[in-house]
Structure formats: structure tokens, C-alpha cells
């Protein structure tokens, strides 16, 4: 007879990255893959622009403008 009780302990790693599509008045528009808790300041620095009006540079990315495309989470930012 096999034991009726079995322990459960599973762990998986995940990337924790988000795709961001930056367009508009930035030096390097395009698609960036950034960490989940990336701030607007860090993102705009990558895109070669000052932090646009309406975005707090210290605030992490918000997902109100995100879409699920091809099964991936993409945040659209149009400056």
C-alpha cells in the first residue's frame, strides 16, 4: 500500500519581464523588454528621451494601456 499522504513542494523560476512599445517623440522608438518593476524614468532613458509629461519617473510601469498580444503582455506608450 502506498502512502495516502504526499508532500507538495514545487518551485519554478519565471522571467518577470514585460514588453513595452514606445512610440512618438522619443529618440529610439521601438519595443523594449524590461523587468516588471521597471520605472518610467528607466524606460524613457532606454528610449532616449526625458520622462514625458504625465509620467512620474519613479513610478513603476502601469498596465492600463497594456494588451495581451500573441499571448504576451505588451504595454503601449505613445509620447
Amino acid at each position, binding site marked *: 500500500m502506498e*502512502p495516502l499522504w504526499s508532500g507538495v513542494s514545487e518551485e519554478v523560476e*519565471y522571467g518577470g519581464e514585460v514588453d513595452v512599445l514606445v512610440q512618438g517623440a522619443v529618440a529610439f522608438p521601438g519595443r523594449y523588454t524590461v523587468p*516588471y518593476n521597471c520605472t518610467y524614468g528607466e524606460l524613457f532613458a532606454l528610449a532616449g528621451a526625458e520622462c514625458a509629461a504625465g509620467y512620474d519617473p519613479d513610478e513603476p510601469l502601469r498596465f492600463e494601456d497594456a494588451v*495581451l498580444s500573441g*499571448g504576451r*503582455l505588451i504595454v503601449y506608450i505613445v509620447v
Partner: protein
Amino acid sequence: MGEKGESRLRRLTHAIYAGDRMVNFRPFFLLSLGFGLGIFCCFFLGIGALWLDLLLLPVAACTLLFLKRKCAAALLFACLVFALFTLGTLSFAMRIAAFERVPATEGNCAVRGVVEEVGRTEETDVFTFGSLTVVCESGEHFETDYRVQVFVYGETGAAPLSAGTVAVFEAEMQTYDVCSYGRLNSSAVIGRIRYRAFVGAEEFYVIEERGEDIFSAVRGRVGEVLFQSMDEESAALSYAMLTGNSGFMEEELLQNFRYGGIAHIFAVSGLHIGIIAGLLYALCKKLRVRPYISLPVIAAVLIFYSGVCGFSPSSLRAVVMCLVPMLASAFGKNCDRLNSVSVAALVVLLIDPVFLFSIGFQLSLAAAAGIILLGGNLSRLLARVRFIPKKISSALSVAFSAQMCTFPFLIDAFGYTSGLSLLLNLLFIPVISAVFSVLFAFTAAACVFPSAAVWLLYLPSYLLRIAVLPITLVEFDVLLICGFSFGGLTALWLLLCWLMTDKINLRPVLRGCACGILCGVLTVCMVFYNLPVGCDAVMTVHSYYGSNLLLLRVGGETHLIAAGMPDEKHVETLFLKEGIRSLDGVIVLAAPRDINTAVPVLLSHASFDTLYVPASAGFPDAFQTVDVVAPHGFFYLGETPACFTGENALYLNICGAGAVVAADEQAELPRCDLLLAPAPSDAFSACAPSLSVYFEKAEGNLSVYSAGDLQIGWKNGIISVKRAR
């Protein structure tokens, strides 16, 4: 060892304990402990528990040598304990194997069987059929003496069935597994119920009426007499108190008894058996019946009564505990109460080892053991308090000691215990004991003289109505102790209780220190066990036969996601266990009609302001106290971005990990790191999850059905899953 050494040892031992030894030798306690441990170890280790015998024998021998210091006798006794451990392991393994050998069924089956039990839930009549002949859709057929529980919806008594009826019906038979949702299905295994089915009242074809067994006949007679002679509420209460079957009581009233911690009056146990034994003993004494006649007569009546109550573990335990001292006294022997409760436990477990996992047996044994171990000491302590009369201190000590030992079992099984229990037990139990003795005597008379039943049962009916009036008028769900669980720490709690008894002869200072240290250890362990330490986000997954509830805790907020229609009992138990009185948001992944039904069910157990629904569902904002939000695209559950993908699926981004919760199979689910779904299906392959957790049975996969409630934590880029507390 020289004289000096012996003298030093003697001084040391006397510094630790008073008297000849630290713990008195109680053979039956050790024997029943050995047997119970064998069963317990078999549950966790399977048949491999037999290897523990190799460890147990020398440990038992050394312990007994320490206690008894007589080599040959101690070794012989150790062998006996070892044998009982082995017997416990083997009997449990055989019991489980016998249950699993009964074929599992799939699809529609034609079934012929004999009605063995008749019961009732709030919504259905329940008939238990035995002596089954089953013909499956595939053509396979078999006979079994295992049973099927058939739930019949509709008007009470519509089905033309009673105990002893042989009938045929066709239904989809669902097979009970030995374990489901992380727990042993003890009631199914003990009751030999392998299947369940749902059948309409008109779908039975009666072949013949056979006689019912004598216990069913007496039970039926008692029910008939009560329900014909009393009002329905009093009859249901009386029937529950006399037979332990509370199925005819109103669920709300029964639940109020549970909230008050006094529902144990409906489990025939020491209270009932003691009163009946007392009545019979008084009658025999009045009639000057000799002990060699009265003892077997009382024993026969008590055993018969236990049979009428279905040989429930609590009634069996109580009957054995009643008979052992009587037998001991008849043979001129002293009877230690701890040994007698141990014999009772051993007898019950020998009858069916699965009783060890029955909550009824656990509570019955814990209460009896608590009263025996703690009651005396506590009573003596309280007797020193001048303003407390002796009878009050005795009643208080009995109630408190029973509460102490049943506390962790109640919390783990039901999610709560009553803060009013001590007070209500003190006030209510003496009254109900008196009412029960009148009820029992007059019901017995009414069964013998049915023409006078109405008159005979008038007095008990009146007394019962008066006695339970406070329970019907006052709601007791106000002072519930809930929101945590003990799990394996129950053993530490019971050890602490044992340290406080007079069964261990420690010096007071040492006893105080040991209790203090154990309290500290228990407190720390409870904190770590109950609080989700060290995770950025925690989701607990709870399932029970289609009711799938996920609690997401992030950033100090708690949100509920129900994948499918939540079951009210499941919701109540979960919220009590988790200490949830309010939620920051609710999502129900179901059809709009089911969401409409689910919201009031949830609101009756916790408050919340916001209900999120998919915009595509077209769900109306029809609730006065709840805001219905139908977001297009992403919205936030606290700090967690979420998005509906279809009507019955939700995508969440928890600490950067994508998670999909699906209530059913649907197309076009996004990729994710974690999938939570009912069962494996090709429809979920598009998600390509790194980790899948299923709610229902999923062979070879992680599921709540096999492992029990699960806790998923997110921390530093790792998702970890373990059993929830």
C-alpha cells in the same frame, strides 16, 4: 554504580519528580497508543511503516525498563506494543486496500440494491443502498457488498423507498476515492460507501420489500412515534438527540448549535450513554436485581442502543468506557479512567482503524481524555477558590478541560470554535441532560404504548421547547475563534495539556518551566505556520467538488477569485478558517446567472464593495451594496494588473509572473507562467505554462483534489507551491 553514585541519582530524580516515578505505568494506554501509531504511520508511510517496528521495539523496551525496571516483563510488554503497532499498520492497509478493490465506475450504470439507510439533507432525501448489482454502460457487471449513497431531489418522501426496499435505478455513479482534497474520506470508507448518485424520485423501480434489520426497525419506530406525536421542530430535535441523526433538523438551527459549541448533544456519546446507564442502574437497584443479572442486561441495552445509533464512534467509545469500570467493579478490580478510555479507543480502532481519521472519534476521544486528564487537577484548583461552590467548580472544570483538548481538532476541522462554548456548556448541558433523561424514558414508553404516545411525549416536548428556546432566539455566530489552524502542532498543544495534568509527577517549578517553554515554542511555530512569511504575493487555492476559490493576497489587500459557482458551505468554512470578514474585491468566473446567485452567497459571509465582471458578459449593476465594474482591458486588483480573457478566464500579472485562472475550457488563452484550471485539457496547451495547478482530479499533475488546499507564493523570480495550512 557505587553508593555515592546511587545517592546522587536519587537526589537528582527527586529534584525532578515526586513519588516513585515520573509517569505511572498504564498498560492499556501504551497498547492503544501503539495500535493508533501503527495506523497513523501507515497513512503517512504506507506499508513501509512496518520498518518503524525496528525502531519502536528498542525504544519501547528502554522506556518500559525506565518505568518498570523489571527486564523480562518490560521486554514482553514491549513486544506486545510492537505487535499492536504492526497490527494497526496492517489492519489499516487492508481496510484501504479492500475499499480500493471495489471497481470504480464510469458513465451511466443500472443498479439493483437494497435500501439500508434512509436519511435527509436540507434539500434531498438520501438513500443508502447495499448488496449492489451494478451493470455499467460498457457491459461490465459486478456485485459488491459496498454501498451507494443516492441523493433524491424533490419533495420529501416522494421516492417510494424505505429501509428494506429492493429497487432498481439507472444513474451516473460517481466513485468515491479513498482520499480527496487532501483528506481521507473517512466517512465513506467507514460507511463502506463507494459510490454516490443523483436520481429523480420517479426513477426507481421497486422490486420487493424485504425486512429491515432490527436497528433500522427500532430507529424507524422511534422516528414514527416522535413525528406523529410532536410538532416537527421538537420531533426533529428529539430524534437527533436520541439517535444522533440530525438530518431532519433545520440547518439554520443546527448551525446555531454549532456556533454555540453545543452541537455535541446530537452526537450520542458519554452524556447520553451515561444517563441511560444511570437510569438502568437505578431501575435495577430499585427492583433489587442482582449484579450478575443487571450487568449483562445493562451492557446489552447499551450495545443495542449504540446499534440503533448506527454504532457511531462516539457511542461505541462511551459504551466501552461505561462497561469497563462496571466489569472491573464486578471482578473486584480497581479501574483507572485513563486505562478505560484507552481500552475504549482500542476497541473502536480494532472495529475499524479508519475511525482514527473520523472527526467524530477524534472529538469524542479528545473530550473524554481531556476530562479525565485535566478535569481532576482543575477541579481541585478551583475548589480552593472560596466563592465558587463545589458543584460549579466541578462543572466548570469538566467543561473547560473538554474544551482545551478538543480546541485544535475543532479549529482544523471546521475552521472555528465558539468563544461562548464554555458558558453555554455550563448553562445548557445540565438542563439538556435532565431533558434527555425524561425524553429517553418517555419515548421508550411511547414506542411500547403508541396509542398513548401523544400524552406520554407531551412533557418531554414541552421541556425540550423551553430548554432550546434561547438557542432559537439568539444567534451565536458573534464570538467565533477562527482565522488560524494547528495542523501538526496539535501534538504540541496536547503535550502542553498533558504537562498540566496530575498524570506526570513533575516538581511544580519544573512543570512551570516546561509549560512555559512549550508555550513559547508553540506560539512561535503557530506564527510561522499561519502567517505567509517571506513572500511578495500569496495565493491560496481551495477546491471542493466544483467550488473553486482563490484568495490573492498582495500589498495588504485580499481579493477573491471564484472559478465557477461557489458552494455556500465551502465559502463559510473557508472564510472562517482564513479569518476573512471583508474582501477588497471579488471576481466570479461564471455565467451571469451564476454570478447573480454567487454574490449574495459571498456577501452573507464577508463584505466587499467591488465586483469585477467581464465587459462582454453584459452583467447588470443590480446590487445596492456592491459596485459592479466591467473593465475593458486591464484593470488593477490592488497592485496586480488583471484582464479578462473571455467570460470564464482571467489573466493576472503577479509580481511579473503571468497567471491564468480558467473556470472551463476555452479558446485563445494567453501564454503564462502559471495555469490554474479545472482539469488537464488540450484547450490549455496554448498557455504553455511552466507550472499547472488543477482544481479537480488530474493524474500525474499537481491538483487540489489530490494534495488538498495549496499555497502559491511569489518571491525573487520564483513561484513556489506547497500545501496550504
